[in-house]
């Protein structure tokens, strides 16, 4: 399990999710909790919109000058004694990571949470070489035991309830464990403690890389990232090439908005800053530090006016929690590594095979809740439309839909054809319409009418009744109040002025 099966299309994946009551209840419960915590945290801050705008500006600036800041980060980290590797594809990143592990003759690697690692399917590559990957983030640990993939950027096991987790742990532990959070967390902690001490390599992701000092910062709530980056002798850190911010001052903004947007926390429980490998005076830390910087389709978005901003994402997961589609289907239905609105945008952008992945952009009602939730104001709802346009332009939509849209264009591009279409519709619906409604499950109404009733076209459209209504209204018309008239005229003048300037 966990691997993606390309034969299963989006619609079928959605159907599977909708039929999973456990999943739907678990996802609704947790996203609901995260969302209301976020809202409270934002309200308590008072000027949340200003923070969002500040966050956006920092990310816009960084991505616009990514080459500069990336170079600065790499130079500084190398000066501090770190090794930096660039990987242009997932394949290359895997090869680099595997080479380091083989050189170190690693048998076991403890990992803190990294979405890039998921993007690389690194655990599979390690297992194939007989190296044991151990996920140490509680959610990731659960998912690894279950042989699944994360279904949420931040809460990877969001689709599982406590009882399912208790069953899973009981199986591993060989004893019946109660569905009690403290007991289950205690079990994971005791299992993982040994793993931390035995591991040859610690692997981490990266929340923010700070260009001015060549440092990087890890946010965690469980302390496992710090264990991964202090106990093992060798550390490998995986980061997407866009994880950069210019300065520590910018981190202050990110540290304020990311936890609040993600979980409603004012601060993350652990914020670990790593400034290179262990120095002579340090009590702990790795002797060797490797940072693998991954492109994997990201640089293609640079310079694209419609999509560059997607690189501003700070992976907080707020758009998933706000999304009404995600709320009902969870993360796996999106099919790839990233889910929710950000996943629906990133999946077609970072994967080459558009026949397979292009359709993921359809998994949204375009309600804009993602944009509203985003702490750096990425217009995901607009990007989804741009991706759909790409699908249309490349001829990836089906013939019926294309024909429907052609017909639509004819009907709406001329008054005559529009009125004709109306008349045809009014005539054609006669056998189906009853009391202004259509309940028959026919044609395009088949899916709609399974759970809904459709309205019939009105017997007389508004345009057909306008003449009569207009006469009546003119007859009754009162005088426009002078102050209203003045206000309307002022609006017109203002418009005129703005045109002249």
């Amino acid at each position, binding site marked *: 399990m966990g691997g993606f099966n390309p034969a299963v299309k989006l619609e079928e994946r959605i159907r599977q999710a909708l039929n999973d009551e456990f999943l739907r209840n678990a996802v609704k419960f947790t996203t609901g909790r995260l969302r209301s915590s976020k809202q409270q945290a934002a309200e308590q801050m008072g000027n949340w919109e200003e923070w969002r705008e500040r966050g956006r500006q920092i990310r816009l600036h960084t991505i616009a000058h990514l080459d500069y800041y990336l170079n600065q980060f790499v130079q500084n980290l190398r000066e501090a004694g770190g090794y930096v590797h660039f990987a242009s594809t997932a394949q290359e990143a895997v090869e680099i990571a595997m080479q380091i592990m083989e050189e170190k003759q690693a048998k076991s690697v403890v990992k803190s949470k990294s979405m890039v690692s998921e993007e690389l399917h690194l655990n599979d590559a390690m297992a194939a070489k007989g190296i044991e990957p151990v996920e140490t983030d509680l959610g990731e640990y659960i998912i690894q035991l279950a042989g699944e993939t994360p279904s949420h950027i931040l809460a990877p096991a969001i689709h599982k309830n406590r009882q399912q987790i208790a069953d899973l742990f009981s199986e591993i532990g060989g004893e019946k464990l109660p569905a009690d959070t403290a007991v289950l967390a205690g079990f994971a902690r005791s299992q993982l403690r040994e793993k931390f001490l035995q591991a040859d390599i610690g692997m981490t992701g990266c929340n923010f890389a700070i260009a001015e000092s060549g440092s990087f910062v890890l946010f965690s709530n469980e302390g496992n990232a710090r264990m991964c980056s202090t106990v093992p002798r060798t550390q490998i850190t995986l980061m997407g090439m866009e994880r950069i911010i210019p300065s520590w001052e910018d981190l202050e903004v990110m540290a304020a908005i990311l936890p609040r947007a993600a979980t409603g926390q004012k601060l993350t429980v652990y914020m670990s800053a790593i400034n290179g490998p262990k120095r002579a005076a340090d009590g702990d830390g790795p002797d060797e530090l490797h940072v693998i910087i991954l492109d994997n389709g990201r640089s293609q978005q640079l310079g694209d006016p419609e999509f560059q901003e997607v690189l501003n994402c700070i992976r907080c997961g707020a758009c998933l929690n706000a999304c009404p589609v995600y709320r009902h289907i969870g993360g796996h239905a999106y099919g790839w590594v990233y889910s929710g609105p950000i996943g629906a945008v990133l999946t077609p952008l970072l994967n080459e095979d558009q026949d397979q992945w292009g359709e993921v952009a359809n998994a949204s009602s375009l309600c804009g809740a993602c944009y509203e939730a985003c702490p750096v104001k990425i217009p995901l709802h607009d990007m989804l*439309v741009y991706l759909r346009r790409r699908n249309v332009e490349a001829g990836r939509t089906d013939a019926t839909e294309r024909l429907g849209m052609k017909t639509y264009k004819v009907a709406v591009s001329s008054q005559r054809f529009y009125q004709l279409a109306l008349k045809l519709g009014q005539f054609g619906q006669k056998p189906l319409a009853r009391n202004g409604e259509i309940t028959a499950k026919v044609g395009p109404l088949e899916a709609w009418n399974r759970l809904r009733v459709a309205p019939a076209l009105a017997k007389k459209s508004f345009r057909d009744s306008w003449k009569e209504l207009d006469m009546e*209204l003119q007859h009754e018309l009162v005088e426009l109040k002078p102050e209203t008239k003045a206000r309307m005229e002022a609006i017109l003048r203002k418009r005129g002025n703005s045109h002249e300037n």
Partner: protein
Amino acid sequence: MKVSLFATCLSDAFYPRVTEAMARLLARYGIRLDFPSAQTCCGQPAFNSGYWDEAKGAALQLIDAFADSDFVIAPSGSCIGMIHHHYPSLFKDDPAGLAKARALAEKSYEFTQFLVNVLDVKDVGAKFPHRVTYHPSCHGARLLGVKDEPLELLQHVHGLELLPLPFAEDCCGFGGTFSIKLSEVSAAMVTEKAEHVIDTQAEVLVGLDMGCLMNIGGRLRHQGTSIRVMHLAELLYEGVCRADGRI
């Protein structure tokens, strides 16, 4: 001064009573209205599905239809949101079209925006002694920023008890072609929305967009509830008639 009605294709074809209520209400303030019959649709069904060439056909028709108007008013935040928010991207490579699109956007108003912000009317003098819940439609609220106007109007209706809708800001699952293309998740969304509406024990569900109301109302009808689904223009006009003793 030419103040034009933009009926929107949905209300023109399916819900003429909504545009009619809006027109009757506006006429009470001395607004002389006209209805350019060249208008069709804003183009959103095609635009949101990625068919921009087709959407442009609709947009050009609409731009021409309202070329002489000073104000354009529609009973939909979604269609007006389309003009304000999406027309600029639709015409991004066509400077002449872009200028015309911007000119239309500048004079286009959603019904409550016009009533509250231009006519400065918050109390229409309506009486509506019912329990009402309000669904804020996504595009009106998020693309256009119409959040306070409808609430202000509702708060001034005499006898109306406004009941908060749980998860009000969640999309109802309509999303235009989304409801056909991914019909099952759309159905899951509207089912939950309808449950929330029922939970409020309201007698009336009111909103600003017939797309959403067609969806939620269609679900409520299917479930056999007696909850009445109304556009705010209808509710206000009916309330005015009641206050005047005409019904």
